[in-house]
């Protein structure tokens, strides 16, 4: 990609069966090359926002990636620019990890030749530290291993916009940071826009240059972690009484004292 493209969202509305979840949501341009975190309480509409950006729920409004208006593209054309990693992977699948990654790369046109595709898939697994699981069945993985396999399926596609829905929810602390570090590296290497839904504010603050806070379908804070995360915001959005302090290295730490 020559010119890395930013994501801009204007007046995005989406919902289910007539009930609106997002009503005219707008986001100032999201820069490529770094991670952007999307946080907010349960049922705030984070998943719906990602699915609307990916074109998986009917939505109105403008979603521009650089010069491309994604909202005007149909599913397969849009999928060349965007990949969405859902919160979960089906339990019942009988595919092996390698097969699932190959299928992810092969599903749409412009696939690599067979041998190169296999090597590319294995290298992707290797970067996630699960090359040794390549021939294991997805059904026989732990929750965390499955989450890494799921991430591998998305990374192998090398999209310009990567949407990760709670990519670290099942991971231990080392793998949480491992995944965030890898996402940051890949974002920088490929000039990718990466939007990740996260629940752990400390993890989000550590790795994301910018945090977008969503509550009841609306953006209630947006900016660098130090600016976005405040005690008032935490009380209003999450209903917790919390102190926000900086550690010796200046990173945001949240200490919860009680429920507001």
């Amino acid at each position, binding site marked *: 990609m020559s010119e890395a493209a930013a994501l801009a969202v204007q007046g995005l509305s989406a919902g289910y*069966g007539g009930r609106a979840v997002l009503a005219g949501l707008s986001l100032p341009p999201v820069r490529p090359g770094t991670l952007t975190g999307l946080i907010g309480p349960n049922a705030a509409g984070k998943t719906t926002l990602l*699915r609307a950006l*990916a*074109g*998986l729920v009917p939505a109105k409004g403008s979603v521009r990636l650089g010069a491309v208006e994604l909202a005007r593209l*149909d*599913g*397969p054309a*849009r*999928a*060349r620019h*965007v*990949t*969405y*990693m*859902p919160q*979960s*992977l*089906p339990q*019942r*699948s*009988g*595919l*092996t990890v*390698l*097969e*699932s990654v190959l*299928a*992810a790369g*092969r*599903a*749409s*046109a412009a696939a690599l030749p067979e041998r190169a595709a*296999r*090597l590319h898939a*294995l*290298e992707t697994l*290797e970067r996630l530290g699960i*090359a040794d699981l*390549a*021939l294991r*069945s997805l059904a026989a993985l732990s929750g965390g291993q499955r989450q890494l396999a*799921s991430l591998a*399926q998305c990374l192998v*596609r090398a999209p310009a916009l990567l949407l990760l829905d709670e990519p670290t929810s099942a991971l231990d602390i080392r793998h949480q940071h491992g995944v965030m570090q890898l996402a940051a590296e890949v974002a920088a290497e490929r000039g990718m826009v990466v939007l990740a839904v996260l629940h752990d504010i400390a993890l989000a603050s550590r790795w994301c240059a910018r945090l977008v806070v969503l509550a009841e379908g609306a953006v209630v804070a947006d900016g660098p972690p130090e600016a976005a995360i405040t005690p008032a915001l935490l009380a209003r959005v999450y209903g917790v009484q919390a102190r926000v302090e900086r550690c010796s290295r200046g990173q945001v730490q949240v200490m919860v004292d009680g429920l507001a």
Partner: protein
Amino acid sequence: MTETSHHAATLAAYAALLRRRALLVAALALAVAAALVLDIATGPSSLKVSEVLRVLMDPAGAELPARVIVWQVRLPAALMAVLVGAALSLAGAEMQTILDNPLASPFTLGVSSAASFGAALALVLGLGVPGLPAEWFVPANAFVFAFASVLMLQALARLRGAGVETLVLFGIALVFTFNALVALVQFVASQEALQQLVFWSMGSLARASWGRLGLLALAVAVVLPFSLRASWKMTALRLGEDRARSFGIAVERLRFLSLLRVSLLAASAVAFVGTIGFIGLVGPHMARLLVGEDHRFLLPASVLTGALVMSLASVASKVLVPGALLPVGLVTALIGVPVFLGLILARRERGT
């Protein structure tokens, strides 16, 4: 160390896995061929396998009775068994994937019941496509109803917001509706028509003819390449609908085209031989146990497991009760269940 040599062991293991699957598919194909010959050799005036092979290779050189038995009587029925098994099992495999439901099959989602209703209308009330010769009257009706039932599923799939669960429930509703309608027709049927209808719905290969075989073979030959072409997409669909769509698969279109193939396969199969319940459900599961869920192997393997079980069922239908030819629909489950259980248990022991 280069990247290639670094992953060489895994790449080799994967290549070996693919080879093993290809071998399993080839072995299944051989087994089908063997079952076919056995099926031809079995019957009231039994032939030696060597004799069957000789008559098949060199029809002109064979004595007249053996030639008539093999070419006019046994071969059409034996090939019909293979083709019907193949068609139903492929239809089942596609349905199980696109509906994300291991219990989906032409039988469980109403296609067979619809065909029975079509046949019932033709046999009992004489209702059907006018102007057709007698040989085609009942199958044509069965085909029309079976095809229409899948088109109804289609129409529902096209409705916005109708998920696969809805489709499956609708298919089950079709089973009950058509079964009730068949019972209604049976209730008003004459003794003789009722007997014909019951016999029809048990499934029989005795109705095979070269003309019918040709049509069924055509249906399978037309559908199979399109099924195989969709195999990567179907494999990806096993990772979940949202994910598949985000990978660039037009899931609605995939589902639509697949159901179209299913309707052609299932409707032509049940139209000619009547209700065969077990194959479409279990053929794909056997194939899955053998070669996994990579659809490049799963689909061909399903074709072959279906053909194999159906062919063995045809043999069993001739030998189970000496001197009697049982309806093959009765025997498929009797033959298929032990094979299926054997596979499941073998897999248990391997611990995978």
